[in-house]
């Protein structure tokens, strides 16, 4: 059993190493595009850095953290050994080979196509093949999670699957569904083009297939944070989970509604008609429901904890909460950032209103606040929570942990709030250096400098995070009796309907919704293929 700890630690350290490098790149980019670094670095270096920053944060940090956390949950919540541990290590090494194969062409400048690809631009085939390997490794993880749950359910017939595992398997199911899009795009369109087997590529179809993945992937990243909200925060705060059923329903709603909404990333694309775009806006409104349910359920759980600790009156429980505990502090900060980021998302999904903010700094602010902010701060909190279990060492004091969380929160807010204003002013994305002589752009300079300061604070916080984890490996404080990790619900589930204990029904509904949302939009490229564009090789 203990060697699962080594498996989890290996995954986490790869994830956080990629994270730290990407933080340096992000800070450098903030400097280079600001008036202070106006003539430093070339566009080639900038877009190489943006590609590396995107790939590290979006594909390496997330995939490896989620796989490591999934193994940990499968072992601790089901209280049984991980099935197929050999496969888990194989998946890990496949992922490592994939990452190396992806990073080399980036560093050689042969893959400056950013982490969202943008065909007809094509990068070196190794870049794409490396990413396919990382995804293949994560598919093995998905199968292991499904097998772990199936074995547990066979050993405990009729028993409800522990919520943490149920959510992890929902995440694996979601990931299997969503990688179909990017896998199809890479295997059938982009890799043949980058290998030179074909000279032309259907850019409209490529974007549509990538959009299939583009939104559900952010929920794949987000669900571990929500697993922490539902199953760790109530226990850390000293209370109970308000409703286990709502927890299951939330993860099911994520599975159903995050998949068909990918095309809201194409609201401004000419190749899809208004009818489909309105359906995307409507479905996106419903993908906000699980988040809004979570805010209520987790705040209620925190209210229970606060009142148990003596909080009086309508809001007394807030002050009574143990904010000195990293998991509780991280949750509070995550909810604030989720609020700002969610507001950004509400504007983005506004059908015609998307025209106001598409591809501006507003969008960058939105996903830095939600992913970079509330999700990554919960990754920190999860790491802090389970590191003692993995390393058998206890923290001397939670103070540096809290400091790191506060720095991340402040840095993120200071970096992203100005971006909202700049986005409305029209500051567009992926700019290596701005022409600050232009009167319109000159006005943005001060705000870019403010966000640069935020970026530097984030870099300090990232360094402190890695230091906090590394210090624990050398700490001499043995963990005597690790606290129980997962929260109890106010009413622990005894009998749970089959549909809240498995995914059969929900997979059918996902299929139906995918046919509605993506059926014609993809079929139109087969029925009446659009004239294809010439492949533009960047390698």
């Amino acid at each position, binding site marked *: 059993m203990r060697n699962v700890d080594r498996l989890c630690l290996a995954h986490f350290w790869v994830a956080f190493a990629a994270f730290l490098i990407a933080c340096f790149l992000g800070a450098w980019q903030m400097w280079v595009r600001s008036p202070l670094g106006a003539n430093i670095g070339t566009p080639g270096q900038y877009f190489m850095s943006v590609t590396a920053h995107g790939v590290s944060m979006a594909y390496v940090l997330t995939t490896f953290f989620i796989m490591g956390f999934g193994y940990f949950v499968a072992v601790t919540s089901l209280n049984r050994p991980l099935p197929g541990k050999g496969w888990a290590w194989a998946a890990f090494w496949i992922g490592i080979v994939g990452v190396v194969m992806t990073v080399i062409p980036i560093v050689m400048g042969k893959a400056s196509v950013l982490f969202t690809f943008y065909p007809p631009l094509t990068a070196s085939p190794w870049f794409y093949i490396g990413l396919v390997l990382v995804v293949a490794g994560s598919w093995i993880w998905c199968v292991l999670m499904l097998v772990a749950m199936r074995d547990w359910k066979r050993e405990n017939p009729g028993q409800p699957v522990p919520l943490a595992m149920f959510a992890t398997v929902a995440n694996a199911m979601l990931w299997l569904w969503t990688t179909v899009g990017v896998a199809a795009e890479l295997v059938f369109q982009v890799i043949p083009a980058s290998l030179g087997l074909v000279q032309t590529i259907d850019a409209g179809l490529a974007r549509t297939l990538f959009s299939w993945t583009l939104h559900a992937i952010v929920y794949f990243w987000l669900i571990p944070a929500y697993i922490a909200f539902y199953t760790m925060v109530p226990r850390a705060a000293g209370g109970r989970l308000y409703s286990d059923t709502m927890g299951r329903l939330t993860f099911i709603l994520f599975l159903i509604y995050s998949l068909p909404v990918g095309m809201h990333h194409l609201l401004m694309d000419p190749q899809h008609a208004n009818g489909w775009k309105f359906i995307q806006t409507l479905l996106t409104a419903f993908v906000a429901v699980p988040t809004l349910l979570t805010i209520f359920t987790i705040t209620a759980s925190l209210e229970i904890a606060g009142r148990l600790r003596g909080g009086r009156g309508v809001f007394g429980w807030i002050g009574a909460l143990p904010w000195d505990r990293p998991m509780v502090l991280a949750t509070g900060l995550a909810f604030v950032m989720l609020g700002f980021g969610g507001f950004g998302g509400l504007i983005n999904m506004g059908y015609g209103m998307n025209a106001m903010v598409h591809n501006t700094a507003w969008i960058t602010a939105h996903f830095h606040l939600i992913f970079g902010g509330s999700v990554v701060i919960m990754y920190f909190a999860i790491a802090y929570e389970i590191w003692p279990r993995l390393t058998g060492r206890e923290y001397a004091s939670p103070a540096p942990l809290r400091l790191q969380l506060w720095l991340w929160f402040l840095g993120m807010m200071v970096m992203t709030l100005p971006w909202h204003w700049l986005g409305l002013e*029209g500051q567009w994305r992926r700019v290596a250096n701005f022409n600050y002589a232009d009167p319109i752009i000159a006005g943005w300079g001060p705000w870019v400098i403010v966000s640069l300061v935020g970026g530097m604070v984030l870099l300090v916080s990232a360094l402190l995070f890695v230091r906090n984890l590394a210090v624990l490996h050398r700490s001499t404080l043995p963990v005597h009796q690790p606290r129980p990790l997962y929260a109890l619900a106010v009413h622990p589930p005894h009998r749970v309907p089959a549909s809240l204990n498995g995914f059969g029904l929900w997979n059918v509904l996902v299929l139906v919704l995918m046919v509605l949302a993506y059926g014609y939009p993809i079929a139109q490229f087969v029925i009446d293929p*659009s004239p294809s564009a010439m492949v533009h090789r960047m390698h």
Partner: protein
Amino acid sequence: MTDRPVEAHERRILGTELLWAFGVGVLIAATLSLIVFTALSRDINPPSNVERIDPKTLHLSGEFAEHNLGTTVGPDGRVTARFIATQFMFVPRCVAVPQGRPVTLRFAAPDVLHGLLITGTNVNTMVVPGFVAQVHTEFTRTGDLLMPCHEYCGLGHSEMWATVQVVPDSQFKPGPDGRVSCAQR
């Protein structure tokens, strides 16, 4: 704790959750109804135009041939501005449009993905090679506005922008051939 109150209490919790879900549903319905209302009353949509065009032969077509780009005022008074979005410039670099009148902007890309926005306006669209991007809008404010390419299109992406001069309708004079060009300031 006998079983009866637990069952009732569990249902009370689910009741509060459903009440919350209902409240959230009402708020979401409010946002969606505002979107539908303005779609119906002011024709507000995201720009869509599933109109195919071969990116490789734009120069052979009549509409997107070089001499036909820029702003033209049709016999029926309709103002149309046409652009080519190519690596790393918009052709033409500067376009004049009237304030307060409906304007149709049409874009085509011969090479890779581009995109554009006009600062301070709701003009925003992707330009996908293989399709004609079309935005119907009405400029509310005058002035020289920036129209950058906002979708990564290669190492020169940062330098790809054009200027849109929004001139008051009174100063918007089409020439004999119906064309309007930027005022050289």
